[in-house]
C-alpha cells in the first residue's frame, strides 16, 4: 500500500500503477478488498483547507478523519448534517463519500448526496478534475460530485471535497416506543415519519420491537413534543436516559446492533458489533461478521423480517425511518442465504465487512449506461470495476 503525502505524489501513484484504489480509514474493509490492485492510503492527504463558519461550508482533503472534522465544526456550533458512520473507527471524508452511507441522523435533513457541493478528484490519467463549486448553491456543469457519492473509489481518487454544514442543536432527547409486532412497528414508523414532530432520527430494533426516536431542538420545545408523542401511543413510550441514548446512537453509527443490557430493571441498553462499545466487543478483524447495508422502503420491513426469520444468528437494525437496514451475519454462510432473500424481495445489499462475501447481494442495477459512464470518466480503466456478480 502506498501513502502519497502530496497531490503530485498522488497523481504519480495513479499514473504509475496498472490498477489503483484509494482507501481511507478502512472502516468498511470489504469495499476495498480488490485483487491485483495497488491501494493508496489517503492518510497523508488530510486537513481542512477552507472553513468560514459564516458561509456554512467547509472544504477538506479526502483523507481527513471525520472525527477531527466534527470537532472543529462543533467549536463553531456547527455539525456535519448527514451524521457520518464509523467515526470512531476512523472513517474519512473521502471514504464516507465513496461509500455513500450515512448514519441515523441522516433521517432529518438528508444524506451525503444532499450536502456535497464540490470536489476535486484525480482521474485515471492523473489529471486533477474539478466539479461543482465551493459555494452552497451552484448549477454550473454536470453534478459529478453527486455521482461520486457511492462510487466506491471506482471512478477516481477523491482529493478534496466541499460540503454544506448546518448549525448544531445542543439539546437532544431520545424515546423508546414499545411495539407488539413488526406490523405495528412498521405502521408506527410510517406514522412517525409523516408526523409534525420533525424527528432527528427514527430507527427500529426488531429483536426488541422497539422504535428509537430522537428529537433535536430547543427546550422546552422538544420536551413538549416528546410528551405529545407519549399521548399518541399511551403506555408504550418512555424516555431513554441520556447517556444510554448517546451510547445507543453511537453503536448504531458504528454499524452495531444495540442490545438491551441485562440489568435488574431491564431498561438500559448497551451496544455490540462492528464499531460498537459493548463489553464483549471484539475488534472488527477478529471473528469477522458479515455486515451488510440494505436499502428499502418502510412498507417492505415486515416482508424483510419474515424473510430473515429462518436465518441463524443474524442481527438486524433498521434506520432512517425504515429506509436502511443493517444486517450482521455471524455465520458467513448465512450471507448467501441473505442474498437469496434480497433477490426475492427485489432488494439490494452492499457488503461492508466479511472477507469471503461478495460485494453485492440481491438485485444489482449495473446497466450498460453505468459501465459506459465509468469508461467516460476512466478511459484508462485505472480503477477497479464495481464487481456486480449478479447481472439483472
Amino acid at each position, binding site marked *: 500500500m502506498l501513502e502519497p503525502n502530496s497531490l503530485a505524489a498522488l497523481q504519480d501513484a495513479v499514473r504509475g500503477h496498472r490498477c489503483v484504489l484509494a482507501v481511507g480509514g478502512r472502516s468498511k474493509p470489504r469495499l476495498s478488498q480488490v485483487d491485483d490492485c495497488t491501494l493508496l492510503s489517503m492518510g497523508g492527504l488530510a486537513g481542512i483547507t477552507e472553513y468560514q463558519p*459564516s*458561509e456554512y461550508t467547509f472544504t477538506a482533503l479526502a483523507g481527513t478523519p471525520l472525527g477531527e472534522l466534527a470537532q472543529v465544526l462543533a467549536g463553531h*456550533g456547527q455539525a456535519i448534517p448527514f451524521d457520518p458512520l464509523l467515526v470512531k473507527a476512523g472513517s474519512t471524508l473521502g471514504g464516507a463519500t465513496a461509500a*455513500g452511507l450515512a448514519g441515523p441522523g441522516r433521517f432529518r*435533513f*438528508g*444524506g451525503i*448526496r*444532499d450536502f456535497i457541493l464540490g470536489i476535486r478528484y484525480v482521474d485515471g490519467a492523473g*489529471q486533477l*478534475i*474539478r*466539479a461543482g*463549486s465551493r*459555494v*452552497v*448553491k*451552484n*448549477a*454550473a*456543469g*454536470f*453534478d*459529478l460530485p*453527486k*455521482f*461520486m*457519492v*457511492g*462510487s*466506491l473509489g471506482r*471512478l477516481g481518487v477523491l482529493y478534496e471535497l466541499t460540503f454544506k454544514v*448546518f*448549525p448544531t442543536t445542543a439539546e437532544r432527547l431520545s424515546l423508546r416506543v414499545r411495539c407488539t409486532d413488526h406490523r405495528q412497528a412498521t405502521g408506527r414508523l410510517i406514522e412517525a*415519519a*409523516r408526523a*409534525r414532530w*420533525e424527528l432527528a432520527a427514527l430507527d427500529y430494533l426488531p429483536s426488541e420491537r422497539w422504535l428509537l426516536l430522537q428529537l433535536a*431542538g430547543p*427546550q*422546552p*420545545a*422538544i420536551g413538549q*413534543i416528546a410528551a405529545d408523542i407519549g399521548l399518541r401511543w399511551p403506555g408504550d413510550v418512555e424516555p431513554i436516559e441520556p447517556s444510554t441514548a448517546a451510547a445507543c446512537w453511537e453503536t448504531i453509527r458504528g454499524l452495531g446492533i444495540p442490545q438491551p443490557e441485562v440489568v435488574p430493571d431491564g431498561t438500559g441498553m448497551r451496544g455490540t458489533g462492528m464499531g460498537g462499545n459493548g463489553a464483549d466487543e471484539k475488534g472488527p478483524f477478529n471473528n469477522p461478521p458479515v455486515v451488510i447495508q440494505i*436499502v428499502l*422502503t*418502510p*412498507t417492505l420491513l415486515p416482508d424483510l423480517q419474515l424473510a430473515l426469520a429462518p436465518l441463524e444468528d443474524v442481527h438486524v437494525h433498521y434506520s432512517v*425511518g425504515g*429506509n*436502511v437496514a443493517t444486517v450482521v451475519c455471524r455465520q458467513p454462510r448465512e450471507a448467501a442465504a441473505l442474498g437469496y432473500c434480497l433477490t426475492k424481495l427485489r432488494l439490494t*445489499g*452492499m457488503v461492508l465487512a466479511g472477507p469471503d462475501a461478495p460485494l453485492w447481494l440481491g438485485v444489482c*442495477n449495473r446497466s450498460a*449506461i*453505468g459501465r*459506459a*459512464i465509468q469508461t467516460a*470518466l476512466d478511459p484508462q480503466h485505472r480503477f477497479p470495476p*464495481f464487481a456486480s456478480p449478479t447481472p439483472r
Partner: protein
Amino acid sequence: MHDPLAKLKALYPADRFLQADSQLAAYGSDALTAFQALPRAVVLPETVAEVINTVRFCHDERIAFVARGSGTSLSGGSLPVADGIVIGLNRLNRILELDPQNRLAVVEPGVINLRVSQAALPHGLHYAPDPSSQQVCTIGGNVAFNSGGAHCLKYGMTANHVLGIKAVLATGEVVTFGGRSREQLGPDTTGLFCGSEGLFGVALEITLRLLPRAESFHTVLAGYRSLEDAGDAVAQVIESGLLPGALEIMDALAIEAAEAAVACGYPAGAEAVLIVELEGPREVIECQRETLHAVLADSHAFQIRVAANAAERTTIWTGRKSAFSAVGRISPDFIVQDGVVPRCRLGEALRQIGDLAREAKIRVANVFHAGDGNLHPLILYDGREPGALARAEVLAGRILEMCVGMGGSITGEHGIGLEKRDYLETMFSAPDIATMRRVRATFDPRGIANPGKMFPGSDLTDGPQAASGLRGLHPLEQAGIVFRQ
C-alpha cells in the same frame, strides 16, 4: 420530395404535429425572452411510447430535439434549435402514483410543480422545491435544471428530492436510475441526471420524495432604509444559529415592480425588504421566534410585519414570487441574472453591481436568496433601442465574472442554458470541461439532445436569434398569473 420528418409525422395525429409558423411561434422562446428561434416542427406526445419513438427517430435521422415543459427556463435552456424539433411534454401530465406511506410520488414530466404539493396535501405531505414559476413550470423542467426556489436553504434543490428517474436517453435507450428508497447504493446516477439541462435525454417518470408539511410557519417581512442593513440582518439571523426555511431580500426597484404587478403592500419607502420564514413544529417555532425577533429588533428595520395567518403569509410571498415577471411593469424588457457569491461578500457584490450598472447607465433591480448568496440582478433595458440588448448582455457578463472572481458561481439555480455557455470556462478548466463532454457523449453520442446549450461554442451553425422587436411575454404572463397592464 423526401420529407426528412415524414416518419416522425406518421407517429402523430395532425393536431399534435405542428409545422405552421403560426403554431410554432408559441414555442419560439422561453423565459429568456430576448431570444427566439423557430424549430422545424413541434410534437406533442401524450404517451411515454410516443416520446421514446420520437427520440429514437431523432437518433436514427440525426435530428436535434429540445424537450420542453412550460418553457420557463431563464437561461434559454428550452429555446428551440432551428434545425431541430421541440418535444412539448405538457400533455404527459399524470401523477402516476402517490404513496403517502413511503412518502413519494411518481409523476410524468409534464406535471406542474405546484400540482404535486396540491395532490400531497390531503396526506399532510408536500413537495418542497418551490421555484417562483411553480404555478406553471413542470417537474421535467425542474429535473433538467435542478431548479431551486426560496426554500432550498433548508431543504435543498430539486435533485435532493428526486429518488429515481426513468428516462429515454438520446441514444434511444430506456434506462432507470435510483428507486423508491431514501437511501441509495452505488454511484448517484439520478443525481447526475438532474441538472443535465436536457443534454442526456428525456425523463419519462420521476420518483419524487415528499416531506411532511410543516405544522407552523412564522413569516416576517422587515423593511430597511438600506440594502446594507438588510444584508447585515441576514448575517445576524444566521449567526444566531437559526435555520430559517427561507431568507429573501428585494431592493427598491424590485419592490416597485412587485407593487405595480401584484399590489403586495410592502413597507412604503423601503430601500430593501427582508423576508424571513421559520417553519416546524409549533413548540419549536414558539421558541425560535423569540430568538428571531430579538435579532430583528437589534437590526435596523424600520418596520417589522408578522404574518398573522395563512392569507397574510401568501400575500408576503406573492410579492417576492412575482418579482421576475413583475419587472415587465417597469421595463419593456429585462434579463434575469443568476449568480452566487459567498454570503459574507453579498454586500460587496451588491455595491459592485450598483457601480457597474451606473457605469453602464442601465437600471438593475435586485432580488436574492440571501441565505445562500444567490443573487438575481434583473437587468432592465428596452429592446427597441438599438444596441440596448447587447449592452445589457455585456453588463450581465461583467456581473458573472465578478461572481466567479469572488469565488462564487455563474449560476445558482437557473443553469447555463444558452445564456451562459460562454462563461463555463470562467469556472472550469479545459480538462474539467473535456470530462463533462465525454460524459455527455456517453448519453448523447450524436449531439442531438438540446445542442448548443451549456457548452461553450455553438454545436450548430444557426443559434437562436435575438428577438429584436419581439416583446417576449414571460410564461407567467402567458398563464395570466402576472399582468403588465
